[in-house]
């Protein structure tokens, strides 16, 4: 992961994007969650040597990002940051799966390289879709949507707290690490130092949780977080879900890329 300051920065950005007001933002979050889940499952359902047929799926994150006013650079940077693990494992494929499938000019292309490329494409698509979902919906709304889709209420309430105090605690941790760095003369901190820093942070957090709970009780809290927002699953949402999911299904069973390839081959001599 990147430095703690850049993560804090990133969190704020995400939240800022989520507070914009566009067509995509106005959709019921449940619709967006459902479509994104469908997207991820369908992308994952392709077999391991699929590369080309996955390409058309890029239209989903791209279209949403554009309609929602999400900067391309932001999206690209964050997808790039998140990709390494999948790519690392994917890079082993060429070593174990060496059968040559075809030659590109004089370059032999093995099945391993194809599946590696497939992993990279999947990673970009699925990570991109998840990022777009949160950036255009906002975390609290995603939580509310998941609750609407059957997630237990306790869990939803807990995630709401997590999100709220994430910012406070990330700042707290950032201050502590900065203070630590300033006094450790450029060396990487030793585990014992980190442990006591974390221990203190933990105790401070615990006390804070106790104070928060008091503050909630003081305002007649009885174990339920009422949410003010009432979303409506209207015609626009139904159209959104049906439209995208049917597009995904078509793209899944009907390889658009081969069709395009054949078309291009026809047009060119």
């Amino acid at each position, binding site marked *: 992961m990147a430095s703690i300051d850049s993560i804090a920065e990133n969190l704020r950005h995400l939240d800022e994007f989520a507070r914009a007001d566009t067509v995509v933002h106005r959709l019921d979050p449940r619709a967006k969650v459902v479509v994104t889940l469908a997207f991820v499952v369908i992308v994952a359902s392709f077999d391991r040597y699929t590369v080309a047929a996955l390409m058309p799926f890029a239209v989903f994150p791209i279209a949403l990002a554009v309609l929602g006013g999400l900067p391309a650079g932001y999206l690209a940077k964050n997808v790039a*940051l998140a990709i390494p693990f999948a790519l690392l494992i994917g890079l082993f494929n060429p070593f174990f799966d060496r059968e040559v499938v075809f030659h590109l000019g004089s370059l032999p292309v093995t099945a391993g390289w194809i599946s590696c490329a497939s992993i990279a494409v999947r990673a970009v698509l699925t990570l991109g879709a998840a990022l777009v979902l949160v950036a255009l919906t906002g975390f609290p709304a995603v939580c509310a949507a998941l609750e609407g889709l059957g997630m237990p209420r*306790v869990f939803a309430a*807990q995630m709401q707290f997590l999100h709220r105090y994430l910012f406070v605690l990330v700042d707290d941790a950032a201050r502590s690490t900065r203070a630590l760095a300033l006094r450790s003369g450029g060396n990487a901190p030793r585990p014992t130092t980190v442990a006591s820093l974390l221990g203190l942070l933990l*105790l401070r957090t615990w006390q804070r949780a106790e104070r928060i709970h008091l503050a909630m009780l003081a305002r007649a809290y009885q174990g339920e977080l009422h949410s003010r927002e009432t979303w409506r699953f209207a015609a626009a949402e139904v159209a959104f879900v049906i439209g995208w999911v049917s597009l995904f299904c078509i793209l899944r069973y009907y390889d658009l890329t081969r069709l*395009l*390839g054949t078309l291009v081959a026809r047009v060119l001599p």
Partner: protein
Amino acid sequence: MHMADALLSPAVGGTLWAVSAAGIAYCARKVRDDLDERKVPLMGVLGAFLFAAQMINFSIPGTGSSGHLGGGLLLAILLGPHAAFLTVASVLVVQALFFADGGLLALGCNIFNLGFLPAFVAYPLVYRRIAGARPGPLRLSVATIVAAVVGLQLGAFGVVVETVASGISSLPFSTFVLFMQPVHLAIGIVEGFVTAAIVAFVHRARPELLDALPASAGARPLRALLLAFLAAAAVTGGVLSWFASKNPDGLEWSIARVTGADALPAPEQGVHAALAALQERIAVLPDYAFRKSAEAASIATGDEAGDDQESRLGSSVSGIVGGSVALVLAFLIGFLLKWRVRAASGGGGSRR
């Protein structure tokens, strides 16, 4: 060590989603019924703590790499396994959504590897066993370190099994195991030390926090729960993978089931026949030759390797060309939309 969407098949991802969702539902009910609701804000805020704490790296001596706190075990020691499981799960949801760490399909795997295994296996079966009822500082530390190592080893093994079962990566099982386990042994030991130090710290500063846990959180009900989970996972996983192996495509199977297109014994012909008929009907180009991407798979598995070399090359090239064209088209649609959005909002001024 987050599992990633790109390495997962829907069958494996779906199985672990189901298992994790069941775990969340069960633990949420447990927390609501058994514990006072004071724990909900506490769990939320401790989740934020864990999130922040995971950003603080420490160097792993002798390896030149760095690790961070996993937290599942620490939270289980502080909150008990149910609340700890929920808290780790919530952190993973946030990481998946905010940082696309792992991804949505892999969420179930990650919750299982990093939440379930430490909280419901390492904590009751290792930590509790070693620590006993009223542990002294040394016993507490030993129990914590051993449990952390076990938990992380299990988690790493989980990643291996899930990856290999999905079959997207070609890494052989043995190689992957030999790669993952030793790496996570070193990480686990250091993490264990850090966790132990934190536990000792809390033990000194606020002993009442550690004593507040009901001692009954150990043994029997947990073992029953564990067995139930394993059974559920085995059944779902077994069913899903049976269909997956009959028919490489979990999704096709589920769609066929939804549409009622076929009886179970011979899913292959039924589904494919139905789909082929469907494709025939909606085909734009009559001579559109490459309908199923599964063909690409058969190329690589070598079953039909002796097939026509020419057509294989042709299909590959048309795949590459088509894929690029599709990608370009996707971006083009993006630009068009952007242009329209700009035009609509009058020169791109942002509204509030």
